[in-house]
């Protein structure tokens, strides 16, 4: 067992317990969402350099150097003196400027956030309902757009997603985090073929990545496979077909996995349809977004198809489990 010193109070951390679990068990309100080291909403700072390296995975090196760490991924090795990361840097004010239904379950939310101009399409933000309750959503917009765009899928009983669908109105104020994550387009190899695979609202970051690549004159082929169970689960189909007709190097394949065959759609899971068409991914760059099980399986399948590990970028939309 180790001790945690926070704001002059001592808390116990059992062996094998994370800082987040120990603090929430003892009644301290720490913001968190994914509990798996992705969203960074549980970020804390240690007074000493005794942070286990696993707790700093994915943090910028400047933050690592200042002993910031993720409470959900930190099993202390020694006693730690800690503070919550400053909320003024974590939470930027934003206003709802657009709301549009994309299909039965996915809503496009437009946000104006004057202090967030500098982001990469495909990164994600954390959206706060209050100080400690946030969820991650990917940016489907590109910085040149006049506002940020999110695609939020309603989950049965999902607390944040239902609130966004049912309560959020034009003009509402809320807070979002600065942009996070490293699943975005990198210029520098404009002829490299790109493979984009997403399921459900996993199209959101891919839409940003696609538009970014096209606007930066990416010359290599770009193949987007968007999958859902049925036609009703897909969205932006007409817009994507239109983009494909304007850009000869962009190819769009909507996929449905229910087993039905519908003209204009591919039958099968997006990753399987993609790999059937492109069995050898030597030299490709791959982006995988959406359902965590899909992302996990697709990461392995695309790697076995000879994409390099460092050329596979992924955002698994892990849901908070509790």
């Amino acid at each position: 067992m180790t001790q945690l010193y926070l704001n002059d109070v001592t808390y116990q951390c059992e062996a094998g317990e994370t800082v987040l679990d120990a603090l929430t068990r003892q009644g301290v309100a720490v913001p968190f969402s994914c509990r798996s080291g992705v969203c960074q909403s549980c970020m804390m700072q240690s007074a000493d350099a005794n942070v286990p390296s696993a707790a700093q995975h994915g943090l910028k090196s400047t933050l690592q150097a200042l002993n910031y760490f993720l409470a959900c991924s930190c099993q202390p090795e020694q006693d730690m003196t800690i503070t919550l990361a400053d909320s003024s840097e974590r939470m930027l004010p934003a206003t709802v400027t657009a709301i549009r239904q994309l299909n039965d379950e996915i809503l496009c939310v437009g946000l104006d956030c004057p202090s967030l101009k500098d982001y990469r399409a495909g990164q994600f933000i954390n959206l706060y309902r209050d100080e400690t309750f946030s969820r991650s959503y990917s940016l489907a917009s590109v910085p040149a757009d006049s506002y940020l765009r999110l695609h939020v899928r309603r989950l049965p009983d999902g607390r944040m997603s239902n609130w966004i669908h049912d309560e959020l109105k034009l003009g509402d104020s809320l807070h979002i985090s600065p942009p996070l994550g490293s699943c975005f387009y990198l210029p520098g190899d404009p002829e490299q073929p790109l493979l984009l695979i997403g399921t459900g609202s996993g199209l959101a970051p891919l839409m940003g990545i696609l538009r970014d690549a096209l606007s930066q004159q990416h010359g290599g082929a770009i193949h987007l496979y968007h999958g859902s169970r049925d036609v009703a689960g897909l969205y932006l189909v007409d817009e994507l077909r239109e983009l494909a007709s304007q850009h000869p190097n962009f190819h769009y394949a909507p996929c449905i996995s229910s087993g039905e065959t519908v003209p204009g759609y591919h039958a099968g899971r997006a990753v399987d349809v993609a790999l059937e068409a492109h069995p050898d991914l030597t030299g490709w760059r791959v982006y995988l977004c959406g359902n965590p099980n899909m992302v996990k399986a697709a990461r392995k399948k695309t790697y076995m198809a000879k994409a390099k590990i460092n050329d596979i970028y992924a955002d698994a939309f892990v849901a908070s489990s509790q």
Partner: protein
Amino acid sequence: MSNDLFERLGGEAAVNAAVDVFYRRVLSDDRISDFFDDVDMERQAAKQKAFLTMAFGGPVHYSGADMRKGHAHLVARGLNDSHFDAVVENLVASLQELNVPAELIAEVGAVCETTRNDVLGK
């Protein structure tokens, strides 16, 4: 078994080139893939990179005790000499695929051999 071997193989760039080929082979090898398949792929790849750096005589240093501790859960699941041999075989095949000269491959094999007893908890 010195830094010299690491230099002759091409240093970190050689490790980076080999890890993709090696890890893909391991995952395709039914004899051993189960031992490598159950966790986060990126983390597993990072571990393979550390392993290759060690096998190449590079700057990572595991004590025998680290090796034992790190593999104890696999030994409990049945990791034995035949699996160890299969990993080395895949490493050799990967280096051959990358056109590494036979003398250097033999040196890498010798470095691996020094870890056998610790890895298998003997």
